[in-house]
């Protein structure tokens, strides 16, 4: 109990620092720390799957994105006086935020007892699919449509980012060209860590059917390994017009959608699986989905195409 209160106060302190820090880079570092602390909170809330996602995606990949993109923003410019809000506006904003926080806290304290839960329904879907991890069963069977739409959202975000490229750069490679010394520490770390990381990513994906883990966590680690290798200059981003890249991006959602549609014929509903082959079908969906998500996440970090194809 004391640990929980201390951890909650620490999270709030780091969040306040992220808002209050003068230097933007310090605020980004604060945000990464905030994400890692939240991962510990998720473990305390008995949600190890969410903890893995928070640490890998919410803290790690988002932090990398913010540091990478933030370093390209013009620095050292203080906002002009008319852009900084006055004391009156700050006080009004603080009052509004305190009211909202108090309202939310009141809702938390007044939650009904016993708490409503969908755990029994989710448990029934576990029994039907043969999966051992309740969260994976919810993601892939009980609420599979959410997962399908989420992958489409990732794809739409990537299309949005690509469409921000200036006309002259369209069809080129995303991000800036990295050239590092082959004898540098970064190259050494990338060569050493990437094979291990790929193995860990595949393992996290594979155990997701019975233990904490799953396709999102595994895909995030795979994407991070690609980003590390490209930061060290070992691999270069492919041009966005490459056919194999486009295929890699859509193979996951396409297989998911095809098996979902086949559910009409096999089990009588969209995204329903016949009970005898449920686990096999889920694994067949998960493998291409993991590859597609990993590619999407890596390309979301890489940004719009910026360089001509060589």
């Amino acid at each position: 109990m004391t640990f929980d209160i201390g951890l909650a106060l620490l999270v709030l302190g780091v969040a306040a620092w992220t808002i209050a820090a003068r230097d933007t880079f310090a605020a980004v570092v604060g945000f990464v720390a905030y994400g890692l602390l939240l991962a510990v909170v998720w473990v305390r809330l008995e949600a190890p799957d969410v903890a893995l996602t928070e640490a890998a995606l919410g803290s790690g990949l988002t932090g990398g994105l913010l540091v990478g993109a933030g370093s390209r923003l013009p620095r050292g410019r203080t906002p002009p006086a008319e852009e900084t809000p006055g004391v009156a506006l700050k006080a009004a904003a603080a009052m509004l935020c305190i009211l909202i926080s108090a309202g939310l806290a009141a809702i938390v304290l007044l939650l009904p007892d016993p708490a409503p839960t969908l755990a029994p329904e989710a448990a029934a879907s576990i029994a039907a699919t043969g999966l051992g991890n309740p969260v994976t069963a919810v993601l892939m069977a009980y609420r599979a449509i959410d997962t399908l739409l989420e992958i489409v959202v990732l794809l739409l975000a990537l299309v949005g980012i690509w469409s921000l490229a200036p006309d002259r750069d369209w069809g080129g490679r995303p991000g800036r060209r990295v050239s590092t010394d082959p004898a540098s520490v970064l190259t050494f770390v990338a060569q050493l860590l990437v094979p291990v990381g790929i193995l860990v990513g595949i393992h996290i994906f594979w155990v997701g059917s019975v233990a904490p883990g799953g396709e999102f966590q595994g895909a995030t680690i795979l994407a991070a390994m690609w980003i590390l290798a490209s930061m060290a200059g070992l691999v270069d981003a492919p041009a966005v017009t490459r056919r194999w890249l486009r295929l890699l991006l859509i193979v996951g959602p396409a297989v998911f959608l095809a098996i979902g549609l086949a559910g009409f014929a096999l089990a009588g509903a969209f995204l329903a699986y016949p009970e005898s082959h449920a686990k096999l079908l889920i694994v067949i969906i998960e493998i291409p989905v993991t590859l597609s998500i990993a590619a999407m996440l890596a390309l979301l970090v890489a940004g719009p195409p910026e360089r001509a194809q060589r």
Partner: protein
Amino acid sequence: MSAATVYGCGAAVLVGLGLFGLIVDSQPLRKILAFNLIGGGVFLLFGAVARRGAAVGFGGDPVPQALVITGLVVAFAATALAMALLLRLVGITGQAGSRSDG
């Protein structure tokens, strides 16, 4: 008071803190950070509700937990899109301001 209540109240404060940063800070990158703080608070509210819904041998209700995983991925995609928009804005105008020069 259970752990779920402690973190639920913490999440309520996080939403307020993030909203304050979103309103008060004029730099776009700081607004994106503040928005992600709000997101963390909202997800944590879900986590508190999930923990309270522990039943049939699970440590928490898996449905809100799965929703949070979905939410984290979508939040990341939105952050990446926001950063790309911001960098393009800087590329066109040469400065990162939340107001146009009019």
